[in-house]
């Protein structure tokens, strides 16, 4: 029962709806003034003050007289979640009707199946895969083969798809996702940001004949920008983590505490 042992809030006046420990912020977990003053620099200070304020507001809510501690860590599906979801659905449905009514798209001439257009592209959400087919410059020509390439460029592009999809498939086995916020695991957050940026840049490489810039520069940026984004994200989150309070998070998410 180490779970209940940590609940030394001593607030017997808090009413509960089914027993169980009340998860009121204990006063002895509140940092001392000395601890506060130790975190004095920039971003970590800001992170600390943000979560400290969130903790304080939560504590004030819980000590109000009409507060009832519930055993569930969520709102009921009906009516709370349903009404919210219906209003969101209504908003986006209305937005679709509004845009379709005010800006009806012109329907062009039917496609001619006997002629190939000058520019062929998949739908935009497959640009990343299309971009991976254009990695020809990365395909090494080997001196041992007399400057020949081991595989054709098109085979190389297909293999690149296998590699990228394989890496994405492996990630859930390397990181089980116990972090509730990016600040808790700066490395994996940085990897994620790098992946998103790479998805964007490789998509831009896919449409390189439409991009108004030097193709070689575009090719280099495709691989450099994800590295830059990863480094910046890691540095920022690593700095923020100094001011981050794990105890606050553990109180909120009892179901899956961070490692």
């Amino acid at each position, binding site marked *: 029962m180490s779970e209940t042992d940590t609940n030394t809030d001593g607030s017997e006046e808090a009413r509960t709806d089914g027993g169980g420990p009340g998860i009121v912020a204990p006063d002895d977990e509140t940092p001392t003034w000395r601890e506060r003053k130790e975190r004095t620099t920039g971003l970590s200070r800001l992170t600390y003050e943000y979560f400290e304020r969130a903790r304080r507001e939560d504590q004030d809510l819980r000590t109000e007289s009409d507060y009832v501690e519930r055993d569930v860590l969520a709102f009921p599906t009906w009516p709370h979640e349903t009404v919210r979801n219906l209003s969101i659905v209504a908003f986006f449905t209305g937005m679709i009707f509004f845009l379709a009514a*005010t*800006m009806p*798209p*012109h329907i062009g001439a039917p496609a001619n199946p006997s002629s190939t257009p000058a520019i062929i592209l998949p739908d935009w959400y497959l640009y990343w895969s299309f971009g991976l087919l254009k990695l020809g410059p990365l395909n090494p020509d080997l001196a041992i083969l007399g400057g020949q390439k081991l595989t054709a460029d098109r085979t190389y592009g297909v293999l690149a798809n296998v590699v990228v999809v394989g890496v994405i498939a492996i990630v859930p086995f390397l990181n089980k996702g116990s972090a509730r916020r990016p600040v808790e695991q700066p490395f994996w957050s940085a990897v994620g940001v790098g992946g998103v940026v790479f998805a964007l840049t490789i998509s831009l490489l896919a449409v390189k004949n439409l991009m108004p810039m030097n193709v070689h520069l575009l090719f280099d940026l495709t691989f450099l920008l994800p590295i830059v984004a990863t480094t910046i994200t890691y540095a920022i989150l690593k700095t923020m983590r100094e001011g981050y309070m794990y105890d606050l998070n553990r109180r909120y998410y009892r179901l899956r505490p961070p490692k």
Partner: protein
Amino acid sequence: MADEFIKGVGIFTGAGLGWIVLAGWYRTPSFESTRQLVSPVSPNPANADLFNLLAIGLMDVLLWFAILGPLAFWVLLPAARQARKAVEGRRNA
């Protein structure tokens, strides 16, 4: 602080929606074009009728409202407030 944020967001999205519809009507020759929303106004405002003229004027008003509104609520007003607080703090110190 949160109030100022939602004011800025509301102005940006509301005015932006109005602008994008009007610019879709008056500054988009075709949805296949590469210069949508920024092409020259057509029909020409010089000989447009009253309703088109009103809509063309409203389009520019909404565009500047969508730019200046969030700028005011997110940058200018908070900066002025901070500056006033700093001045008062220095005066009291």
